[in-house]
Each structure stands twice: as structure tokens, then as C-alpha cells.
């Protein structure tokens, strides 16, 4: 079973994402900010990371930049999932090392389609 780390400071969003991704046969781990997520990845790299942008302590962009510097950190497929939807910001996220990008609000169909595109399903 593939492991997906869901990183979002909202517990409600994490819960929604967990339900959708469990339906797609992922095992889910959760983190509330980038720093927690980085600690998780240092212990065991997940297959996929669903990543919010704006979070306390360490935001999503900072996290993905740091992740990509870590040993083995190029491996996880990183999919942003954020209300940030300005093209320039999206480009910044992709330059920072993200593979795909979901603009909130999202639903199960969008997550599934994006994970298929990113080669995760």
C-alpha cells in the first residue's frame, strides 16, 4: 500500500483528504505544518505528499524546497493543495519542486484525476 502524507494545518481538511485518499487505497499519515512533515519524511519517505501552502511554523513552499535537499527527498510525489490560485504563485510552487497542484476547493474526482496524472494511481 502506498503511503500519502497529508500536510495541512486544518484538521477538517486533513480529515476530508484522508477519507478521499483512503478510498483510493492509500495509507495516510498526517502533519499539521511543514516542520512536522519534514520530521516525518526524515524518518520514512512517503510515496506521496498532499501539501497545503499557508501554515504556521513552516509553510508548504519552504517545506518542499527543504524536502528536495534531503537524502531521498526527490522521491515523493508532491501535490500542492491550496487556495492559492495565482499563476505566478503556482509557477513558484512548481519551481520549488512540486509535481502537481490542486486549487481548493477540491473534491474526490479532482484528487483522483491529479494523482493519476502524477503517476500515483
Amino acid at each position, binding site marked *: 500500500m502506498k503511503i500519502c502524507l497529508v500536510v495541512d494545518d486544518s484538521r477538517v481538511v486533513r480529515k476530508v483528504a484522508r477519507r478521499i485518499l483512503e478510498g483510493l487505497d492509500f495509507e495516510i499519515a498526517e502533519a499539521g505544518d511543514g516542520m512536522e512533515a519534514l520530521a516525518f519524511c526524515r524518518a520514512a519517505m512517503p510515496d506521496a505528499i498532499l501539501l497545503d501552502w499557508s501554515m504556521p511554523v513552516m509553510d508548504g513552499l519552504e517545506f518542499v524546497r527543504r524536502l528536495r535537499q534531503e537524502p531521498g527527498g526527490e522521491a515523493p510525489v508532491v501535490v500542492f493543495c491550496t487556495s492559492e490560485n495565482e499563476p505566478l504563485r503556482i*509557477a513558484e510552487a512548481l519551481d520549488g519542486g512540486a509535481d502537481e497542484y490542486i486549487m481548493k476547493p477540491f473534491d474526490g474526482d*479532482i484528487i483522483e*484525476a491529479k494523482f493519476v496524472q502524477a503517476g500515483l494511481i
Partner: protein
Amino acid sequence: MKPEDLEFVAAMARARTGLMLGSERAFFVESRLSTLARREGLPTVDALVAQLRAAPDEALIRAAVEVLATPETSFFRDRTPFDHLRDEVLPELAARRGRVRVWSAGCSTGQEPYSLAMMVEEHGSRFPNLKLEIVATDLSTRALEKAQSGLYTQFEVQRGLPIRLLIRHFEKAGDNWQASARLRQTVRWGRLNLMNDFSKLGRFDVIFCRNVLSYFDPTARREVLSRLAVALAEDGCLILGAGEAADLPEAFEPARGGAGLHRRNPGYGKAAA
């Protein structure tokens, strides 16, 4: 929705477009008609059907048929035919001639022709001399207007469209996203009922006709397919939707690559000529 109303609407749609709406599609019919009823300022679907029965106004009939004939769609729907086109069909055709004509028959709200245009632009280096002409037609004026505007909601652009293609080929327009002017200009749009003669559109090298014919009754489907065969170049390729390949007329034979791809049968039409 009353069964006799469903029958009445289904008969109307079938006569106009060959579209088949069985009782299993009652929910679909009702939900589409309720959208139309709202748009027309009518209180209910029943009221809409009553009006269609009482005073058969051409514009209203046409609007009703259109909402019933517009399927759900997404960018790069089913993915595989696009990959096969990119890797096999287009390089082959481009090597043979400079100009390749593609027809998106039943283009709905435009995702299919735009996907095609983006794909060719993204992989332009594979076929440097290719001049691609994309013609997109649909029965629904409303679907065509949307297609031509290139405007899609945030939900729509997240169905099938990779994020890198979105930011390269679309611009943000308020809450929506709009296909770039360049992309919009690569497609020629036109309203067309496939039941009518389309020989004036000329010959095509590739014809997409996906998820359109499966809603036609068998006779109409066969008839449209044999005219599509005439519109297809001898070395051309017809692309049907997933699961639509059964019972094709002898004009076509399955092509390598599967996924609804068909070649014109080389023997077809020769005996008659």
C-alpha cells in the same frame, strides 16, 4: 418526471438527433431539463414539457434537444488516444504531408480540441513541419459558445489538465480560467448536426467522434459512421470513445494501439467506385 413525458421528450430528441434516451436515463433527462426550465423562467420540468407539447416553439425544442445532447467531458479524456496520436499517428501523417486536418465531431464544450491543440504545441519538436488544422463541431450552440470563449471554471480546469499545461496555456479571468488567445485561434468552430450532410467540411486525416454515437439508435449510428468513413482520408484514423467500437460497419478496421482507434478499411468503397 412522468413516464409519458419522458417518452415524449425522448421521441423528440431521437427524431432530431438520433439520440437514444431510455427510461434508465430518466434522472439525467430530468436534471438537464430542470436546468433549462430555470433558464427559461419556468417553474418546473412538468411546466417545460407542457409547453413543449402545447406550443411547439422551434427555439425551445432546439434548446431542449441541445441540453440533452451535451455530455460531460474533461481535458485529455481517457488519455490513451491522445498518447497514441502523439506517438504514432501524427508523426506518421506529418511525414507524409505538411498539413494534417483533425475534426473533433461532437466537441461539446471544447475540452477535446483544446487538449489536442495543447498536445501538438507541447510536442512541436517531434513534428517540426506539421501544420495542424483543427475543426470542432457540436450540435449545441450553447456548448459551442462556451468552447469558443475558452472560459472554464476552476473545477473544470482541474479535470484532466496537468497544472503545467494550465499555467502555460490559460490565463486567470476572475474566478475562471480562459484558454489563451493563441490556443483559441487554433480551432475553427461550427454548429453541426451529425444527422445532416457534412461533406462540405472536406476530408480529414483524424476524426474524433467520442461518446456521441453510443447515444444514437443503431440505424442512425451506422449511417453516420459510413459518412464519416467517406470524410476520412484513406490513411486516416477514426477515434471512438471507450467501449464504442462494437458493431462497426465494414468501412473501418481496428488499428494498432487499441483504445477506440480505427483505420479506414482499405477495401472500403473501392467496389462501388
